[in-house]
């Protein structure tokens, strides 16, 4: 085999996660540098990347239902919310106004995902029967029902405008809030969160890759490309559409639970329509229906504001002299990017990466 890394001699090697050594090496390099980054970076960058990991997890979820199974879902934020409040109830601290049981993270993290996927399954009878724009509208309704519930269910969410504290960071009985001492090194809260989220992100990514190369993933794509043909070759549409919603919500729920644990508190108004739409935008910008796309999209979305800030500092423009404030500029540019991607690169950031990779594979020849 040496010297011919691209010559496959059996089927199992060809369908492996990393079908050649280059991919394997890159994967390891990226993970090691991500771990090293944890100990070098400032808290600002750590927090930024932690959120990027979590947004990637949620976007991977949405990508399963929208990218692979091809079902429009404008209510992903709602499922993220379900996960968040499940974790808040199970892992949060009870006060006079909200309930909480202060249980371990090993309990609330999976349960927040499971609760979200159960809600996903509950609405399956409706979502499975609809497609296209009609499905979009139903999920839109779900966002509004969700935000109404969240703002009025005061014993769980704390009520609109007030919010509540979310789950406590306690793993296997060890309180991680104030950091832990490992040998001579002291891991503070931000570093712990970063490592937990990095792990989540890696496992979700591998899971999605596994999904794509096996039976369920192929069934999802078949439903996207032609549901009548998919049914005619024996794919149970009801089962696979609902399992796509359930899986997607599972990742959304887990991501939500961690996300607000990182930020400390959550206000029910967060889970509005815009919040859900952003996930759709991330998937489109990253590249819908690809494995790496949502990861790229999530990093783009979270790091984009930081780079604008750097650019403004580098150009020595004072914030007061700008006609719009930073938030507005971010949103306008982000919107602009969505339009540009839809027109020039429908495959999103993944498409750009794909072309770059192929260019350098053949370098210095042009094809």
């Amino acid at each position, binding site marked *: 085999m040496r010297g011919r890394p691209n010559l496959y001699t059996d089927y199992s090697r060809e369908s492996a996660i990393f079908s050649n050594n280059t991919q394997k090496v890159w994967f390891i390099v990226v993970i090691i540098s991500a771990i090293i980054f944890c100990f070098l970076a400032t808290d600002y960058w750590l927090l930024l990347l932690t959120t990027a990991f979590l947004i990637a997890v949620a976007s991977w979820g949405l990508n399963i239902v929208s990218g692979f199974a091809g079902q429009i879902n404008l209510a992903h934020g709602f499922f993220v919310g379900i996960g968040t409040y499940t974790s808040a109830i199970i892992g949060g601290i009870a006060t006079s106004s909200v309930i909480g049981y202060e249980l371990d993270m090993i309990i609330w993290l999976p349960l927040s995902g499971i609760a979200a996927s159960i809600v996903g399954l509950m609405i399956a009878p409706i979502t499975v029967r609809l497609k296209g724009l009609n499905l979009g509208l139903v999920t839109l309704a779900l966002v509004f029902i969700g935000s109404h519930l969240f703002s009025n269910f005061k014993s769980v969410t704390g009520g609109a405008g007030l919010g509540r504290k979310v789950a406590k960071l306690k793993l296997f009985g060890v309180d991680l809030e104030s950091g832990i001492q490992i040998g001579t090194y002291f891991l503070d809260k931000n570093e712990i969160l970063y490592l937990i989220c990095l792990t989540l992100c890696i496992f979700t990514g591998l*899971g999605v890759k*596994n999904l794509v190369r*096996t*039976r369920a993933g*192929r069934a999802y*794509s078949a439903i996207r490309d*032609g549901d009548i043909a998919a*049914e005619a070759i024996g794919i*149970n549409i009801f089962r696979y559409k609902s399992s796509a919603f359930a899986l997607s919500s599972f990742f959304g729920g887990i991501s939500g639970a961690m996300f607000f644990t990182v930020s400390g508190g959550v206000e029910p108004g967060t889970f509005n329509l815009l919040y859900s739409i952003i996930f759709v935008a991330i998937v489109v910008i990253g590249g819908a229906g690809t494995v790496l796309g949502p990861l790229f999209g999530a990093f783009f979305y979270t790091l984009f504001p930081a780079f604008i800030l750097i650019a403004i500092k580098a150009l020595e423009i004072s914030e007061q002299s700008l006609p719009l404030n930073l938030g507005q500029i971010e949103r306008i540019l982000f919107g602009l990017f969505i339009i540009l991607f839809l027109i020039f690169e429908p495959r999103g950031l993944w498409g750009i990466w794909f072309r770059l990779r192929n260019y350098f594979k053949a370098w210095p020849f042009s094809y």
Partner: protein
Amino acid sequence: MNSLNFNDVTLKFGGITALNNVSFEVKPKSLYAIIGPNGAGKTSIFNCVSGIYRPTQGSVTYGDNDIKELRPDQVAELGIARTFQNIELFENMTVLDNILIGAHRHLEYGAISSLFFSKKARKSELEAREIAEEIIDFLEIEQFRYSYILSLPYGVQKRVEIGRALALNPDVLLLDEPAAGMNNEETEDIARFIIDIHEEMGKTVILVDHDMNMVMDIAEEVMVLNFGEKLAEGTPAEIVKDSKVIEAYLGVS
């Protein structure tokens, strides 16, 4: 293997009668052809068999199973596979993936096993790949294995669709105009594949096509439809001589 029966099937869409009291029997391991002018109801018959349409009256049975009660995916589980008149392949996937999807019903593991790529998943994936490779080999589409459907010429797409249906390892194969839009050479290839599928793999084949030369050449039994009604049924030799068929479809020379 079971025989497929149509018992007085009537199919109506509002005021339009697509099929009117059609009855026929396809015996196991036979090669049955359905011909007729455009709009005669040939594809409607296929849609009734594969559970996409529900007959208004009458019944469709396969062995002891009443197909009227089943969803399309349950019909496929019984071992009835089909192709479509206007190719319905999964366009954003490769030829190999399309054929692997056909093997869906032979893989027995769920979404959770998929996520973790469990041992069971690994084993059945490899088995499915073996099946897929045999079919690719049989249909002579090796060089297109990794091509996306969108980029393939029409004739190859037609073949891939047959391959996808074969991957189900069905007992009954419904082919809806497999030779439509093909030149003579491609039609000959397709005819050869159909004969091989019928004789070597021992499958029941039901064929709809307009290419009279091919149909009369390979079919064992032919049914002629006109405006949703059965006009004649018999061996190709009988059909060619039938005066009603000549008037309605073949034309007088």
